[in-house]
């Protein structure tokens, strides 16, 4: 019998539907693979008992003819999503003992659709980073080369998908944290339009940028997961009321006649498969249009100001009072200091310190507000581009994964690490990375077209 973990999510669904195997069998196979590959450190918390129980219930539902859209599919959840009764850490010591008494809306939707929870995946602490090296629970290794990082911050999810330790996984983006590790681990990743997925129960990093999304072995897999996770949530005031189409049925494998923009600012450095990709799109009948996105270069600066400013206040609640790890102190302030010194890693502490400046009376007027204006200009770039084209096409991350050693010495600060990813986070537009490292960005709310084009991009041999 073939290894069930070698099937894509879509193939697994088909096999389950045809009763070729059960969810318990698939889940057991994945749990075995997780054990074999545990040295990659993709998971912070594995939940085999929960998984088998959920798989059993799933098989019962299927037997009763009540199969959901993801019935029986074993998934990994980035440890930024609160899961009721299952430890949720944000890869931080300060939450290393936190058991949420509630479930995030998006994971609840996955479970309601029949998915099975394998465990919680590693990330940079509070999702701040793009190497998955700042986790309190250790570095995650890239399954393709274990001396290298998986990218980040959703590096645990990307590694788990790449190493077949799950059929699919959730991730979160703030500045590219799904597409970056997807590119480094050669899997597919999709970040929907801001407001598509509820942020309820997702640990906040920078609220105006954070967007839950998915990683899978193919865009079709991503489409199946994300259409379940999306939709209005009354518990999130920034959750859209717009309808969610069944994306996976809209992947019609054709881009004939579509106008695809190539922003010149996104091609300063390109990967090896770039020329081939351009030719492929032309061969598929797309019309390629050169596009100017003049404020692209400013995205890193705006991201730096906005994300740190917002993160500082989002992380103020971790004070050792109501949950998490506490370090005692004689006074309240001393307890706060001891707790937060011991609870947060240095990267997080540094971002919080600098973040205070941007919301201080002086920093707010001189830097934060002007940066938000620059954010408007970046958005204008997109608005103008989408007057001319249907989607934008570019590499996701034009560089190869750096080694863990390089990452520890600041390799992730290089400018080609994430400058093709950040503008779409700042503006909220949908964007995804195909499993060959190529990126498609679409209009606000036009998630369907992004997925459709990415699906075609993945046909490239």
């Amino acid at each position, binding site marked *: 019998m073939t290894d069930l973990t070698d099937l894509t999510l879509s193939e697994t669904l088909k096999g389950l539907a045809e009763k070729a195997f059960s969810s318990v069998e698939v889940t057991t196979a994945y749990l075995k693979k997780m054990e074999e590959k545990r040295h990659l450190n993709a998971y912070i918390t594995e939940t085999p008992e929960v998984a088998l129980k959920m798989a059993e219930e799933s098989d019962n539902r299927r037997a009763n003819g009540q199969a959901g859209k993801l019935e029986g599919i074993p998934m990994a959840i980035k440890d930024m999503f609160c899961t009721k009764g299952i430890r949720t850490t944000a890869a931080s010591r300060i939450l290393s003992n936190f058991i949420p008494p509630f479930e995030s809306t998006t994971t609840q939707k996955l479970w309601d659709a029949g998915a099975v929870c394998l465990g919680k995946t590693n990330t940079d602490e509070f999702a701040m980073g793009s190497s998955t090296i700042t986790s309190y629970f250790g570095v995650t290794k890239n399954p393709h080369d274990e001396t290298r990082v998986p990218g980040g911050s959703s590096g645990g999810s990307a590694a788990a998908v790449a190493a077949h330790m799950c059929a699919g996984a959730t991730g979160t983006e703030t500045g590219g944290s799904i597409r970056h590790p997807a590119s480094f681990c050669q899997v597919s990743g999709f970040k929907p339009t801001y407001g598509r997925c509820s942020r309820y129960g997702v640990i906040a990093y920078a609220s105006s940028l954070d967007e839950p999304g998915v990683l899978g072995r193919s865009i079709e897999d991503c489409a199946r997961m994300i259409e379940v996770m999306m939709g209005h949530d009354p518990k999130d005031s920034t959750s859209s009321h717009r309808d969610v189409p069944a994306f996976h049925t809209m992947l019609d494998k054709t881009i004939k006649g579509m106008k695809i923009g190539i922003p010149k600012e996104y091609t300063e450095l390109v990967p090896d498969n770039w020329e081939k990709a351009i030719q492929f799109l032309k061969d598929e009948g797309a019309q390629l249009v050169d596009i100017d996105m003049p404020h692209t270069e400013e995205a890193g*600066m705006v991201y730096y*100001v906005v994300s740190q400013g917002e993160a500082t206040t989002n992380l103020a609640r971790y004070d050792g009072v109501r949950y998490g*790890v506490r370090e005692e*102190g004689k006074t309240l302030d001393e307890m706060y*200091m001891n707790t937060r010194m011991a609870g947060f890693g240095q990267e997080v502490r540094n971002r919080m310190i600098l973040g205070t400046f941007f919301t201080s009376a002086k920093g707010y007027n*001189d830097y934060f507000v002007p940066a938000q204006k620059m*954010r408007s200009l970046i958005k204008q770039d997109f608005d103008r581009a989408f007057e001319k084209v249907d989607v934008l096409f570019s590499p996701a991350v034009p560089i190869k994964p750096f080694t863990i050693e390089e990452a520890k010495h600041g390799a992730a600060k290089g400018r080609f690490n994430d400058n093709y990813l950040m503008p779409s986070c700042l503006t909220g537009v949908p964007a995804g990375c195909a499993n060959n490292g190529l990126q498609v960005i679409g209009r606000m709310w036009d998630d369907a077209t992004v997925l459709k084009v990415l699906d075609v991009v993945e046909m490239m041999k």
Partner: protein
Amino acid sequence: MTKIDKDTIKEMAFWVRVRIPDDEAAKMAEEFTETLSWIGERLKNPEIQTVPPMVTPFDEQIPLRQDIVTDGHQVQAVLSNAPDATPEFFCVPKMVE
């Protein structure tokens, strides 16, 4: 040009209740001053005066909730993760006025 010194960094660290040793604060101050000067240069772009600040990509109206009690009555769950608590209260070191 904004110059950030060691003491400002230490004050900012206090705002978020973390400590930073003097030498680290001094180094951070130096680097941050440089970063701010770089940011300041980029923000001199006169174009930014032509647009409003973008706070969020979200473009829909704020939802208003009906005023009904739908939550609470879950003391145990609320206190279940507390490092120090009685069956009713969270406990912290004595707060003095």
